[in-house]
């Protein structure tokens, strides 16, 4: 099994203590993408049940190393960091390509896990993209899964309901955020991980030519950043004495109907 992860900026700048409900404002730091933590946990649960090896993989600069060690401290057997200056600026096409090439190098892989999306760019393209490059079956938006005799049975959570699909391996499964509770690292595993270390692969190691990746080989290009569009709204301040007028205005504008809901 392989788990694809990404290190992202911590989106929860504001954090509410679940016990006291007080606000904590912490500095934005880097974290493992939340859905990827759930993907790792899903893989580790399969490992607990059926055995097998779990390899965590990311494509990132060297700063990602401690996050890979963290995954090993939770129970992953090994970790691969694909680090190469040439990949800088890659969009989801070359990213999927590079990850797929690295997975192929690992040899026989039954299940590739990924988060449904990342919390920073949020495209959700890489999991399906890797599936396509590996010519693998795909179960996206999965909340739980089972493995039996070379088949994955996955519960996909869709807008309209939950679909249960059965696909043969090799398969890519993308896991939805909060679908399980990621286990904590143990001290023993942490020490093991530190001793073992991670594997660092360059593009050369996975036979991907440098001109296949990076900004120049990405089909999409960010052309410009624009200020956020803003409708011209009046922000009319209303005090308590005007609540009646406000409700009357809303009725007049036909955005609420008090007769129907009365």
């Amino acid at each position, binding site marked *: 099994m392989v788990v694809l992860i990404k290190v992202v900026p911590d989106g929860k700048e504001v954090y509410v203590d679940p016990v006291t409900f007080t606000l904590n404002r912490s500095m934005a730091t880097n974290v493992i993408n939340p859905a990827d933590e759930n993907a790792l946990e899903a893989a580790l649960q399969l490992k607990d049940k059926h055995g097998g090896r779990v390899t965590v993989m990311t494509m990132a600069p060297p700063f990602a190393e401690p996050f890979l060690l963290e995954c090993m401290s939770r129970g992953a057997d090994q970790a691969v960091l694909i680090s190469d200056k040439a990949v800088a600026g890659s969009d989801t096409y070359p990213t999927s390509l590079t990850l797929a090439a690295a997975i192929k190098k690992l040899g026989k892989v039954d299940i590739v896990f990924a988060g449904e999306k990342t919390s920073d760019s949020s495209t959700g393209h890489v999991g399906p*993209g890797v599936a396509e490059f590996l010519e693998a079956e795909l179960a996206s938006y999965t909340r739980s899964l089972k493995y039996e005799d070379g088949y994955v049975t996955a519960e996909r959570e869709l807008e309209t309901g939950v*679909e249960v699909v059965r696909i043969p391996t090799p398969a890519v499964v993308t896991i939805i955020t909060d679908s399980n509770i990621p286990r904590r690292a143990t001290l023993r595993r942490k020490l093991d991980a530190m001793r073992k270390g991670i594997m660092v692969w360059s593009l050369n190691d996975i036979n991907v030519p440098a001109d296949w990746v990076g900004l120049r080989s990405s089909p999409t290009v960010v052309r*410009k950043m624009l200020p*956020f569009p803003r409708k011209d709204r009046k922000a009319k301040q209303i005090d308590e004495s005007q*609540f009646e007028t406000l409700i009357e205005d809303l009725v007049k504008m036909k955005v609420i109907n008090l007769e129907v809901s009365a």
Partner: protein
Amino acid sequence: MTTLAKAVPPEDLSQYKGIMVYLDSFNDQLTRAAIEMIGVGRKMGDKSGEKVIGVVIGSQVQSMVKEAGYYGCDEVYGFQSPEFKMYRSKPFTDILAGTVFEKKPNILVVPGTKNGRDLAARTAVRVRSGLTADCMEIDIEPDTGILIARRPDYGDSTMSEIRCEKHRPQMATSRPGTFDLPSKNPKREFKTEIRDVKVDKNSLKEQILSFIPKGEEDITASKVIVAGGLGLGRPEGIDLIRQLAKELGGSIGVSRPIADLGWVPHDFQVGQTGKIVRPDLYVAVGISGKPQHIVGMMDSKVIVSINKDSNAEIFKYSDYVIVGDLYEVIPKLIQVIKKKKKAAVPQPSPS
């Protein structure tokens, strides 16, 4: 089928013409997101003179093909097989990518439903082109045929404009609810072609074992949404916004931190990682107004914000603002609404 190789752009871009719209469906009915995308395609078609080509896959596509034409497609291709009642990642990719290779569209837009995103991401790799997700704006440069896709950036208040100038088709998805529905005209003229697809059951690797429909309220359909943010401060705040929502005949919504705290399911989350809503009335309660939230509700018809911080960012996006403690403001608003409702009930006329 898709070997590991870079995305080499085609040499002659001029042979790529037309705006293809993939029409996502559920139970052989077009999804709202699909109809939104026809509207997006139609607008670009009118602007550039390129034709709008719908592609629909299902078990019985006849009525969907017609609908697609009524809503604005110039040509609609339907692919049907009893095996296509539900979405299947690989066979649907085969069909959509096959149609792309056959028709060579300049642009391909796909509704950003979960299955749509699955399909778009896979198809983009298969056809070796570029895909931009979650576009808030999709437009075409009429003279160049270049797709202008704009999506919000994370953490700061900007939109990125993303282009795919060298590869074809230029692909984009948008979240459901991002666009208005186009109008339906049963008198429109359009060309249709329905193909029966022979599916070898043995080659179908993905088996759908069951489907359990969800009874959950779909807040994107609500006319009124009362949404709460961190300013609620405690879980009881949810009861309060629920009461106001009930009085107004609407549903509740929440910002991401509240859903992350588990006070309500993520189904109610409004914003970039939740639902995109555009109700008639959006009441933002204790929501500061981070861009991630704003993109999910800024197209609401009327926005009323309640916040104790008189400098709250959300006020810039609001028609009416109430500065005050929501635990005092909301009960008073409910009182006023109740009073108005009593007055609105028609009195029996004297005989």
